[in-house]
């Protein structure tokens, strides 16, 4: 790599060849406004907001797209540049439904910020907003409002580059160009996985999650209803960002207090049901291995693949419908929680399940869809009544007028509020695998996993596909058939990586026994329901916070969670038992591929 030198606003900068002018500007702390640019995505260069003047060029250059050259002289704030930028933002505003007062992304919108920064006069141009744009609310998860779209194509690039789903496309041309699905079908008929990655990459309010907080407020306000909320592991390390905390802050205690202050009857922990998932899934894996290795049962599908990411589940239902047998039958922690909240919890608390409203706070958009899958009513009721995102919770806390920073810490309620470090790391890519190995290895050998401090580092980090292998030796008598087996596992996050893993599986060439897949890059900490912005740096910080959370837990193995031990004793009886099957396991359906 050769190094080149250029000047930007009279500052000298050296940078690797191949980097853009924008990269170079960042290096010397010159901020250039952008809109279509996103760190996660390839260059588009279509919004033109980032234009700068390059000496010797008649036209302006889009700094996000033009490579820096040796000897370049760049000016980012000349009258020519400012006029053009201002005009461009004014043009975007002129094709926009400028109703910030009623917009979900207000105060967190890149167009709004640019418009404020450049003090745009809404009357500079005529409105060319298309009339009669209907908001698509067909999906349980995603809301699409083309009247707020700036046509930056970030969503299209996200769905293609990060997720390889390509549910979204650009259609038409010229004045009719827009973001659309196949044949402009409503989103619920598209092959959309509901992952919500397009939502967190959209700079405006054009793509948002469907909001359900009004339902929650209603339930809270209803005396007759008993509202239980479970909060996912990755929410506690991200919600702070909505409330003035720096990225990566752990605010678990304050979050619990705030929920109590909202008037929720019982604040519980999804980490509990994550632990439960680990136990069920761990046993399922061992059972599959036994059937495959000992009983030579050819109907058993290996590798087994995790099923706790509903975006991933819908993806495989669409794209690899022939291979659903590889999915673990375990429900996701959210749905296990829901089913138990209206059975076990109701029984223990002596509350009529019909009066229980079970809510989850999730880093995820797909969980909304999952909660509404028709089959998710094994408790006899809708297992989960509403799934909210981290962002929605942030809004609720603000709506309640709470001063989050001033809140004292408090503990989760009981029962189903106790958790372990293993449950906590579910929130980061590799976490499920790590938790599962901690439990499975110990079940089989009676010893701790052979890693320092139980930290299975090979499955951590942001690499798209990670692999690990653990040799099972000196197995307990029950598991002697596994003696000497090298357990091979893989972890994929982001659906583009999931597809790579699945291509291998489909070709019958997968070398693994067990695979963890999360739909979102980074796992849940980078979920479609997390605070905006989300990018690589932010994902890393949230993940670090999750691992700190784990290190600070007294118990760090799912099967050692006292409440888990208790629920098996009192209610479920045994892993994969009859009750488990009824409440905690599920089946999948084939969906259209195109």
């Amino acid at each position, binding site marked *: 790599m050769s190094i080149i030198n250029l000047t930007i606003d009279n500052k000298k900068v050296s940078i690797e060849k191949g980097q853009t002018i924008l990269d170079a500007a960042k290096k010397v702390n010159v901020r250039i406004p952008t809109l279509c640019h996103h760190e996660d995505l390839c260059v588009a260069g279509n919004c033109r907001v980032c234009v700068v003047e390059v000496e010797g060029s008649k036209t302006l250059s889009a700094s996000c797209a033009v490579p820096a050259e040796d000897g370049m002289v760049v000016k980012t704030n000349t009258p020519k540049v400012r006029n053009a930028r201002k005009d461009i933002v004014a043009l975007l505003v002129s094709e926009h439904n400028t109703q910030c007062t009623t917009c979900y992304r207000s105060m967190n919108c890149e167009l709004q910020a640019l418009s404020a920064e450049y003090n745009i006069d809404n009357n500079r141009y005529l409105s060319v907003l298309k009339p009669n744009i209907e908001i698509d609310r067909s999906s349980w998860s995603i809301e699409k409002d083309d009247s707020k779209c700036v046509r930056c194509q970030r969503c299209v690039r996200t769905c293609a580059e990060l997720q390889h*789903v*390509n549910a979204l*496309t650009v*259609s*038409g041309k010229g004045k009719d160009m827009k973001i659309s*699905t*196949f*044949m402009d079908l409503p989103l619920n008929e598209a*092959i959309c996985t509901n992952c919500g990655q397009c939502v967190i990459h959209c700079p405006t309010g054009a793509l948002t999650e469907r909001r359900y907080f009004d339902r929650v407020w209603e339930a809270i306000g209803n005396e007759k209803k008993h509202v239980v909320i479970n909060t996912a592991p990755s929410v506690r390390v991200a919600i702070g960002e909505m409330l003035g905390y720096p990225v990566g802050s752990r605010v678990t205690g304050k979050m619990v207090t705030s929920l109590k202050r909202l008037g929720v009857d019982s604040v519980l922990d999804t980490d509990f049901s994550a632990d439960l998932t680990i136990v069920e899934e761990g046993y399922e894996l061992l059972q599959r291995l036994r059937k495959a290795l000992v009983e030579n049962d050819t109907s058993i599908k290996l590798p087994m693949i995790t099923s706790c990411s509903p975006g991933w589940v819908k993806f495989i239902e669409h794209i690899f419908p022939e291979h659903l047998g590889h999915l673990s039958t375990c429900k996701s922690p959210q749905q296990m929680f829901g089913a138990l909240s209206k059975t076990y919890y109701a029984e223990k608390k002596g509350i009529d399940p019909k009066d229980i409203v079970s809510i989850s706070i999730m880093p995820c958009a797909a969980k909304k869809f999952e909660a509404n899958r028709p089959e998710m009513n094994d408790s006899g009721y809708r297992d989960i009544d509403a799934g909210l995102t981290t962002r929605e919770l942030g809004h609720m806390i603000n709506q309640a007028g709470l001063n989050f920073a001033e809140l004292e810490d408090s503990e989760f309620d009981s029962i189903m509020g106790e958790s372990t470090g293993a449950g906590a790391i579910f929130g980061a890519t590799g976490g499920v695998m790590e938790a599962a190995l901690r439990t499975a290895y110990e079940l089989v050998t009676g010893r701790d996993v052979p890693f320092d401090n139980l930290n299975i580092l090979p499955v951590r980090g942001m690499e798209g596909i990670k692999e690990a292998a653990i040799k099972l030796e000196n197995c307990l008598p029950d598991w002697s058939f596994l003696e000497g087996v090298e357990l091979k596992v893989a972890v994929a996050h982001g659906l583009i990586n999931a597809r790579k893993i699945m291509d291998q599986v489909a070709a019958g060439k997968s070398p693994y026994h067990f695979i963890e897949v999360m739909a979102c890059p980074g796992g849940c900490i980078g979920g479609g329901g997390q605070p905006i912005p989300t990018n690589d740096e932010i994902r890393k910080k949230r993940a670090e916070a999750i691992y700190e959370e784990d290190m600070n837990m007294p118990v760090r193995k799912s099967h050692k969670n006292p409440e888990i031990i208790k629920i098996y004793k009192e209610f479920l009886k045994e892993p994969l038992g009859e009750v488990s099957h009824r409440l905690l396991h599920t089946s999948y359906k084939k969906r259209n591929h*195109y």
Partner: protein
Amino acid sequence: MIQTKNLVKELVDKHGCSRNNLLPILQGVVADENYLTEKAMVEVAKALDLSSAEVYGTASFYSYLFTKPVGKNVIRVCKTISCKMSGKQKIVQAIEKLLKIKMGETTRDKQFTLIESNCLGWCHKGPVMLVNDDVYSEITPEKAIDIIRDLDPKHLTDF
């Protein structure tokens, strides 16, 4: 349905199954079925390992790849300035009257669709119209009517 499937298969065999072959394949479907049905786009997506949205998004960029139903014969009248100056409006009116449709519409029997087009590249001989692949230049309203009659005499007497 089966027909569409076979058609797409034939076209893919002929042109190849990489994305570079997408436009020739879609052109082939249009040549045979007048426009791209949902079914056809899905089949093409399958064959080229694309999502159906990508196929639709690409097709909808191009004015010759219809994603909505059109008639068997597509009449395009040039609307650009030279043809405007040489009287394209009279041609349009004559055709509208003959076919009893408005600009942009398709006859009820799905025989004809009338649309406007940007410059067709015959400006020195305007007004110009393109019927399917055939160019007719220096047309008069009478000539336009004859041309359309010749294409489907039966249809027009039935009207």
